[in-house]
């Protein structure tokens, strides 16, 4: 893919544990992700892959282990948390747009309120973002007036408006009709080519193979195997990985 600008580690996770009641969702997960890297997280449902990326911006609090994002360690200091969240954008399976705001306001709100940008500048930035994802003409509509694919592209623009260093995608195309998946993947592909650090949970294997620098394969709360797409498709080592790949390919 793109030449790496540096080998700087932007996300460092070490021995991360996460419990939901009696169920351990993450069992000592460790991973280092370098700046500009596109990482695709694979695994069966319930394997902890969503939980892992949700720990990175602390939508889930981990119980043990260490997570450092761009040199900021996640701890009890809420200012650190705020700082991390404004550097990490997230796109959800269900879009989670704000239904009471127009598309433009959805995108412009965070720069205005979090970065205290003047309204006019924030709206210009938002329009630029909407142009980037290909739907500037939908700016004055409300989210529910848009198709699923368009809503997800707005969600991507909303996350990008904070000019994050890292983008997390939690099954971004799973709630979409098949004919709308491509338009969202195209936006993500463009983003990957621009050198954005991305962590993507997805089942779109063709897309994953094309954009990923590295695959992380999760099973039962652990990273079972990792490597390049070539490694995974041609030479998987673990039985669990082989089984998973045989089921979804």
């Amino acid at each position: 893919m793109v030449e790496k600008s540096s080998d700087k580690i932007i996300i460092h996770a070490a021995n991360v544990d996460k419990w939901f009641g009696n169920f351990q969702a993450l069992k000592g997960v460790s991973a280092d992700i370098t700046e500009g890297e596109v990482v695709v997280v694979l695994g069966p449902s319930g394997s902890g892959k969503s939980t892992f990326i949700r720990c990175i911006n602390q939508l889930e609090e981990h119980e043990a282990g260490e997570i450092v994002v761009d040199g900021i360690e996640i701890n009890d200091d809420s200012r650190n948390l705020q700082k991390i969240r404004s550097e990490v954008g997230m796109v959800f399976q269900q879009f989670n747009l704000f239904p009471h705001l127009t598309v433009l306001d959805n995108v412009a709100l965070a720069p205005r309120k979090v970065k205290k940008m003047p309204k006019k500048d924030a709206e210009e930035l938002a329009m630029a973002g909407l142009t980037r994802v290909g739907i500037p003409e939908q700016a004055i509509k409300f989210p529910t007036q848009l198709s699923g694919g368009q809503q997800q592209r707005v969600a991507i623009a909303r996350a990008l408006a904070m000019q994050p260093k890292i983008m997390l995608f939690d099954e971004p195309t799973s709630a979409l009709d098949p004919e709308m998946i491509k338009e969202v993947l195209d936006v993500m592909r463009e983003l990957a080519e621009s050198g954005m650090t991305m962590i993507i949970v997805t089942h779109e294997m063709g897309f994953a193979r094309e954009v990923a620098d590295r695959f992380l394969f999760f099973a039962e709360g652990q990273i079972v195997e990792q490597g390049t797409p070539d490694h995974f498709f041609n030479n998987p080592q673990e039985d669990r990985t082989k089984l998973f790949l045989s089921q979804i390919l």
Partner: protein
Amino acid sequence: MSIDSQPNSNFSILQRLVMAYEDSDAKSQLFKTKLHTAITLVTLVIVVWALFTIGQFMLNGEWQVIIDKRRAFMIGRYPEEHVWRIWPTVWMFAAVTGLSSALWLRPGKRVLISLLLAGSIISYLFLEFDSNALKFGFGLSIGLFGYALAYFGDTKFKLTPVFAKIAIAGWILLIPTMLVLLFIGDAPTTNYWGGLFVNVILAAIAIVVGTPLAVVLALGRTTQGYPAIQILTTSFIEIVRGAPLIAWLFMGRFVLPFILPSWFGLNEADVIIRTMIILIIFNAAYTAEVVRGGLQAIPKGQYEAADSIGFTYFQTLRLILLPQALRAVLPSLINQYIGLFKDTTLVYLISVVDVLEVGRKAFNELNYSGTALEVLVFVGFLFWVVTWSMSNLSKKVEENLGLGTR
């Protein structure tokens, strides 16, 4: 004789009836079979009988009591030389209502014309009695002027943001202005407050102060991870809701002075202030449950999205949660407010002379014996006008806010 067509809220009942009849479906169905014909005729008889009875009552009723006591109905025994304290609030209300309706509600020509007509009739009826008609008419003109100003300011000169700021400031300042005017200088004590004026003030204060309190209570009750706050707010809500309003009013009248420290300034005379406190608390507890319903209807994804773009708790609350929650529960909120407004008539039990009590006193006078029905119908009508305006307003607001939400 089922009428299949969807009722259209933009038309009056009469227009809808005519339309339903013109609709060939209904036309043929009214007399479709013998049964249809029979039902139609029976209905017709009932309607004609009801209209005839109401008409007869309107024509033959002893309405003199309403005209004689009109002043007491409105303001009780508030001294004449202090009435100037009340009118500015009325005018201010008219002005901001005019401005706001032009800015946000855009009532149809029909609504404007009927308001104008109603205003003129009231002015005309009162004209032969005293100068209050002029003051009322002045208020009406201010309202219309505000409407016209905002209307043309919007369509011709793009001054909407300016007018919007003025209107919002007006709404915020309305009740403080009213209170200042009622209390500055050698103002009559609250013992002199009475009539519809008291019902409106009590309800307005309970709504305006109680609703923010309700939001705080609802947030406290739904909060995660702070059990102390949860226990405190939940017990508050449950205890207040657990006893009838009358019990709380008596409590305010007779017990509150002993509980609260004396520097609170609640001497024996200030029954109204104590009633206000009780109504604020009572309304807050009920409204809190309405707001809680709205908060709980918001999907978890909204919180996560707000968190993920770096909002603080208060930003999430102000920008994402409350706008959606309050919009969703607007019909229930208005329902609560309408109930509260009518509950203010209970204050007669702690010897506040509200509009209903003025009426009761009036028809118990020897001069006006036998006018109970007329008086009660009139008082009912006053309440109906206010609550009907509230429900129509909420309908309009819902229509305006509904865009893009569902």
